[in-house]
């Protein structure tokens, strides 16, 4: 199993706004990360994760991929910006205390803009799925 760098070496985000724990897998066009929220973490309400924060887990997963690619070129973690979200469905609420798996798969890239499909799952069930567009600072 591949060991990936600490996410804090890959993304510019810092507590309390770090929304991924570690990378699970990286392929040519996708990245999978994992995050477990606990009660009272930033971005939770009661025993559940806020829907908006789930999108942030996906955005930071993509940022981690960019940071990973930059490692070879000794670049600093680049800041990214969410540009848009499209047709995102929530099928259930994400629970605290159970790992979330975040898959971001690249659909298209034009310059520094990327469009990705995101799938967030928990206990093998899809929690949310949709499309995001990001701008990564060069």
């Amino acid at each position, binding site marked *: 199993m591949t060991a990936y760098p600490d996410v804090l070496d890959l993304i510019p985000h810092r*507590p309390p706004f770090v929304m991924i724990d570690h990378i699970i897998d990286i392929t040519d066009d996708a990245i999978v990360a994992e995050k477990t929220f606990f009660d009272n973490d930033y971005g939770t309400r009661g025993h559940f994760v806020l829907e908006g*924060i789930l999108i942030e887990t996906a955005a930071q997963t993509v940022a981690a991929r960019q940071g990973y690619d930059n490692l070879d070129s000794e670049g600093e973690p680049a800041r990214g910006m969410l540009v848009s*979200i499209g047709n995102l469905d929530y099928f259930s609420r994400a629970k605290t205390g159970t790992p979330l798996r975040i898959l971001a798969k690249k659909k298209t890239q034009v310059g520094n803009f990327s469009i990705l499909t995101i799938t967030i799952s928990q206990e093998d069930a899809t929690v949310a799925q949709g499309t995001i567009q990001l701008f990564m600072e060069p």
Partner: protein
Amino acid sequence: MHHDILRSLGKFHQDETGRIEAEFCFDPDMALFKGHFPGAPMLPGVVQIEMVRLLLERAENRPLQIIHIKKNKFLKPIVPGDHIKVEIEPCAKAGATSVRARLLVGEETAGTLRMTLGPMENSGVRP
């Protein structure tokens, strides 16, 4: 996060059509901005989604969960200290609340949002 959003809320007004107007201003010293990003504070785009949700919860006096985001565009960065105006137009939908929202800083549109929310289910299963 909701605590940060609610203490940043200033004016709130809902008219008889259900249209909501509200104003926010986020304190630069909030812990949130230490992490997003160090040395370059910026309001995370996803916070805009939660701002609109909280305003709707206040208007409907009940917790809501987001079911679908049709389109959310982030047009202009929002930084702490910006005076943010939020305008929400409800679109009636049986059993759910569909809205169009716009966030402005000054005269410029910083974000637009179309989403659907429903009553919150503690079981976690979408209604």
